[in-house]
């Protein structure tokens, strides 16, 4: 009698579980979230009859203990079997419910994807709001930058980049204002830079004429302290390195000398000076000759012992 009652109770509990399972399936088919909640309720509903059955069996055992020990033992065994059966049924019901829910979710998801207009959704999506809600710092903190960089094809990126356009859009002045050039310069190894630089090639590409056209040489010269430059210059060393012979080979010394001679009239000067010297010499010889003539005449007068002086020379 008690077993029948207990069996009936168990059957009722099974039907109630079937009913709860059907309700859970229906609920899951209606809405994904609600289906999941219904599944949890169905699991709870299926567990409730088992727990009721267990409680009822406990009450029956207490009653039977009061009636007869054997009957009580039989009832305990029956109750133990019923508990085992209830546990297995409950586990089976849970697995079945989970499979049903998964199948339902997959079906519902496929249906939803087919029915939903993603373009419309994207159109209605407020990306700014989404972005505002995104914790960029947290995202960035989770990004493995090293891995990203290691996987990036930097060469390809650079090759595709329009560097000219980027440079054209860059505010160089603003960038320079933010750069501590002194610090950069202090860290710069100028010797290494110069050693690596192709100065000859760079100079060959420089348009010196254009640079000179833009330079105000008068202003530069007016600011130049020539005395200081000369004072610092090693003129002796510079002159010692000068190939004087090469310079002289390039200079038309004969032409320059000819121009100088023509300019100062050296030939006329030499001619006049030579002629003057010769004339003065001849005049001196003539004067000395005159004096000698007079001396000889006086001597001749004394030798002749003339009483009267010599007559003056005819004029």
């Amino acid at each position, binding site marked *: 009698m008690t077993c029948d009652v207990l069996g009936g109770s168990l059957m009722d509990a099974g039907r109630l579980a079937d009913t709860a399972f059907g309700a859970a399936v229906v609920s899951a088919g209606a809405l994904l979230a609600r289906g999941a909640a219904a599944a949890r309720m169905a699991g709870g509903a299926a567990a409730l009859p088992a727990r009721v059955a267990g409680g009822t069996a406990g009450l029956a055992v207490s009653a039977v203990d009061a009636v007869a020990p054997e009957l009580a033992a039989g009832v305990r065994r029956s109750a133990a079997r019923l508990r085992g059966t209830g546990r297995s049924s409950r586990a089976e019901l849970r697995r079945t419910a989970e499979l049903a829910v998964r199948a339902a979710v997959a079906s519902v998801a496929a249906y939803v994807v087919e029915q939903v207009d993603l373009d419309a959704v994207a159109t209605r999506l407020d990306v700014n709001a989404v972005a505002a809600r995104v914790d960029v710092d947290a995202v960035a903190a989770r990004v493995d930058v090293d891995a990203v960089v290691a996987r990036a094809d930097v060469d390809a990126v650079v090759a595709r980049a329009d560097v000219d356009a980027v440079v054209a859009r860059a505010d160089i002045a603003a960038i320079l204002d933010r750069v501590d050039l002194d610090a950069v310069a202090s860290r710069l190894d100028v010797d290494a830079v110069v050693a690596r630089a192709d100065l000859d090639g760079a100079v060959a590409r420089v348009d010196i004429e254009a640079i000179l056209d833009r330079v105000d040489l008068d202003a530069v010269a007016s600011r130049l302290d020539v005395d200081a430059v000369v004072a610092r210059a090693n003129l002796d060393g510079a002159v010692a390195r000068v190939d004087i012979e090469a310079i002289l080979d390039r200079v038309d010394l004969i032409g320059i000398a000819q121009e100088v001679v023509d300019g100062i009239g050296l030939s006329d000067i030499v001619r*006049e000076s030579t002629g*003057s010297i010769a*004339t003065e010499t*001849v*005049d001196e*010889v*003539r*004067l000395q*000759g*005159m004096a*000698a*003539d*007079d001396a*000889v*005449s006086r001597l*001749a007068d004394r030798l*002749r012992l003339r009483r009267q002086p*010599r*007559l003056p*020379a*005819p*004029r």
Partner: protein
Amino acid sequence: MSHPAPPRQGEAAGIVTRGLAATVDVVLVGLGVAAVYLGWIGLLFLGSPTGFSWPTVPWGLLLLIGMALAFCYLTAGWATTGRTYGAALLGLRVLSRSGHHLHWAGAAARAALCTLVPLGLAWVAVSRRRRSLQDIVLGTRVVYDWSHSTAPSQSAPPRPR
């Protein structure tokens, strides 16, 4: 360049200046004789180079050549400018009795006397009027004249009577 006026232009030249001028002229004549001699040697060499031998020229011949050159040289100089190179160098000029250049005949006569009797120049030293033997014979005189013109200097006074 201006020079001071030469002194005593037109006065009779003494033995020293005339002797120096004669010395210069003798040297020039000697150079002329040497040139003639070397020219003659050159002609002999060109005429027979293989059989050439240095000829021996008698001194008398050289003296005659020198006298001939001196005659021509003195005649040309006195007849054209009144001075030889030696006279021009010492500032002397030979004038005629009238105070002009000698004619060719007078110049030739004076040149002949100077060539044949060169010691006649020594009479200048004892002459009161500084006249050589040639001057006394031909009536010429030699005066100081430093001018470069071929004509006698205007300051040259005429011969005193």
